[in-house]
């Protein structure tokens, strides 16, 4: 083995004796000295080339996309449980309870007792979603958002009944942190022992609503619902510029994501479809302070009227019809979304024919 230059085409001076390691090769042929590749080197290179070709072929087979549709996004579609979160009906119990008073906790407790006791709705281990309406950055006195007292009372009752977690969530129109802060809902939920969930891109999934037309597939605030067992809506009673009134069914609008401002083109259809999307365990129509005009934002105390009333119902359509007629003083026969919701099986808008109780605490 010499270190001098060798003609690569000339036969090697000394034929290789057995196997000579690569290190020896490098020693024999320092960089820059032309040499012939050894058999081992040729085989190793061929093997590497073969591997690379196989890898390339496998990658091509896996990524082959002749129509160009392979890379298009296909959103994962989810559904809420069949039958929703409603509890079984019981004969002899009212479906609609109206409670007048000023102590939210006592009012809620009395209302729940009249509906068959809180145990009918929440039991130990339940993961309860409480959905307030926190759409706007408004202080509680303006009645644009759910009353923090009512929300806190509900959370306390559910926690006391053994609910393992109470989740409070909404996807507001104004900036979420500001809405939850100003409305007092963040503080009320925190102090009462609920978990506050702000809208976050990771929470939204495409929800499939069987039978719906506008929201057959639509982004929804889904992740907290994935393992929830109970859903309770607590919504303020408000005037609304377009659909006349925002009550318990309209409240579910705050669970939608995406380009939801298009729904105003068919507002009554969407409100009735929302009632199909969520079959709640219970709805509470919070009429402690009622926004009589300039809704749904309000903004002036003169828009608000104290009514000190809570409407508890297992039938959201009846609750809305009652609130619309008795509290807001308007004619439910002329509110299209109530009729549509009834057609879609969300409840009974003729609240007078629904078993009902009225209490004062």
């Amino acid at each position: 083995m010499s270190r001098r230059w060798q003609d690569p085409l000339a036969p090697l001076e000394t034929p290789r004796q057995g196997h000579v390691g690569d290190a020896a090769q490098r020693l024999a042929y320092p960089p820059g000295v032309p040499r012939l590749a050894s058999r081992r080197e040729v085989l190793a290179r061929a093997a590497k080339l073969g591997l690379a070709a196989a890898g390339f072929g496998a990658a091509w087979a896996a990524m082959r996309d002749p129509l160009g549709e392979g890379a298009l996004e296909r959103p994962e579609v989810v559904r809420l449980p069949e039958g929703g979160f409603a509890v079984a009906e019981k004969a002899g119990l009212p479906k609609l309870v109206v409670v007048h008073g000023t102590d939210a906790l006592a009012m809620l407790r009395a209302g729940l007792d009249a509906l068959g006791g809180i145990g009918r709705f929440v039991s130990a281990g339940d993961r309860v979603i409480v959905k307030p309406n926190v759409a706007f950055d408004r202080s509680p006195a303006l009645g644009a958002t759910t009353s923090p007292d009512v929300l806190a009372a509900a959370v306390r009752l559910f926690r006391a009944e053994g609910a393992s977690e109470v989740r409070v969530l909404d996807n507001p129109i104004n900036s979420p942190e500001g809405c939850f802060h100003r409305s007092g809902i963040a503080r009320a939920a925190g102090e009462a022992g609920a978990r506050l969930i702000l809208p976050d891109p990771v929470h939204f999934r495409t929800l499939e609503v069987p039978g719906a037309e506008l929201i057959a597939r639509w982004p929804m605030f889904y992740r907290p619902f994935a393992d929830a067992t109970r859903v309770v809506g607590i919504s303020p009673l408000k005037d609304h510029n377009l659909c006349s009134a925002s009550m318990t069914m309209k409240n579910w609008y705050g669970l939608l994501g995406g380009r939801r401002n298009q729904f105003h083109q068919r507002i009554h259809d969407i409100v009735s479809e929302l009632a199909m999307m969520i079959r709640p365990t219970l709805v509470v129509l919070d009429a402690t302070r009622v926004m009589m005009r300039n809704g749904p934002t309000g903004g002036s105390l003169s828009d608000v009227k104290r009514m000190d009333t809570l409407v508890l119902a297992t039938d959201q359509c009846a609750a809305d019809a009652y609130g619309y007629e008795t509290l807001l003083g308007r004619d439910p026969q002329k509110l299209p979304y109530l009729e549509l919701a009834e057609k879609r099986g969300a409840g009974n808008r003729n609240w007078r024919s629904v078993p009902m109780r009225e209490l004062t605490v």
Partner: protein
Amino acid sequence: MSAPSPAADVPRPTRPPKPYTRRLSMRITDVRILSQAFFFALFIYLAGVTWFSRLGGYPVSLFLEVDPLVALATGLSTGTIYRNLIWSLWVLVPTLVLGRWFCNWMCPYGTLHQSIGWLFAKITGKDRLDANRYRPLFRTKYVLLAWFLVMALFGSLQIGLLDPICLMYRSFTTAFAPSWDVAAERVRQVAPWLPGWLLASPGTKEPRLFTSAVLVGWMMLALLAANLIIPRFFCRTLCPLGALLGVFGRFALWRIDRNPQKCTNCDLCLMHCEGASDPHMLLRQSECFACMNCIEDCPEDALAFRFMPPKESGVEHVDTSRRRLVFGAVAAAFTAAFARVSGATRDRHFDPKVIRPPGSPDEREFLDRCIKCEQCIRVCPTNVLQPALFQAGFEGFWTPIMDMRSGYCELNCTLCGQVCPTGAILPIPIEKKLGLPPHQEAGPVKVGTAFVDKSRCLPWAMETPCVVCEEVCPTSPKAIGAYDEEIVRWDGKKVLLRKPFVRPELCIGCGICEHECPVSDSRAIYVTAVGETRSKGRSLLLKSRLPMVPPPKSHC
């Protein structure tokens, strides 16, 4: 000289012996690194808590308020020292004693540059010594400073373009923090259990949007990349704050001083010299960052940080001629004039989309004050504020304007004015913004006026019900009303259309109508600046506020 020491004929070691094997006390450079780490962490912390759910009375604009260039330049442009800007004495007074200590002990941008050089610029040996020699190029910053200060004197505050603290805040706010959130969102889609507080701006429906992100981010990256060619390029060549501190620091009582008796002219002191201040010869006092590396590097112990060393052993004057400074000043005077000639500050030629945040004074006064630090943009909960490009003219580059497509002005919020360090947005109380007592006479602060584009509006132009704008209008009574009209549509269906209109006396220009309008590209209702409260010359109505109209009857 005394008798030669016994070791005199022993050959000099090629490397200095390690003075100790185990370090029991800290070296001065270790203390410096700790100081830099502390202030860098403090900067990130304060920038991180400049966010609705994290506000807790922290002085979130602290670094801007101790920045002497901000105080001096706004002092020149407004004739006043606003709110906390007097805190700049905390930097300025020590500079008179210790020189440009700020640049290598406190400045987060300096720390960033030094770290980038340390991590990525592997310049070694003689190349490194040469890279740290003083170059005439480094005098550029003094000319720039003259330009900036004279611009400020003419009422056009441009320091924010290059002031390191403004640059740092701006890059964090409009490029790096939102990029972090975009990346975090990707990760959290896969790992949703990662907590939301990892985000720079948690609790938003989507990561924040900034039209200037690439421009601002690339400026930062390009300036950082310059370290690979010339270490601390920005600090040595461009930094107007460094130049200002250099001017004041040349009178410092303490400075690096070389003992020529001990010095062997090995030039090793240049090895880690941050400021390129020539510690190996006559120290350029106005360039020295007091990083103390030369003291640690000197094998002969010939360098020390000394009290009042002899004048002749250093260079006190700033290395630039009066002529260059005069040129900078004259160029600034012309630039200021060009800007005013081109018309962005005039009342009949302003861009309709230059909508300033509530509490801003008149446009000229605004330009006197705004340092483009983007603290208002960082704290804005709705993402409505965007750094302008040339909408507000050359002078208004990167000043905040409201883009109602990316956000809207939250009715009950005045955070932008609270964090503004210079009063470009005044900290108005919420009562003043809303026109509540005792401000009911003046009425609410209008930032602009909404207009309906009837050719794009769904009820007006397309026989389709909508009025999201009316729904979200936050004033009471609503500044957007609607005419009810029942029509027979093209397909024979009867439809009730509510056709929106604006009540200009009530509209405050908050822009939530524009933000929520479903005609998402070019909105069918939009806000322009005309009618803004801050400007007399840009008013719209004969009286800015007519007597309150009775609330409209709700329809049933």
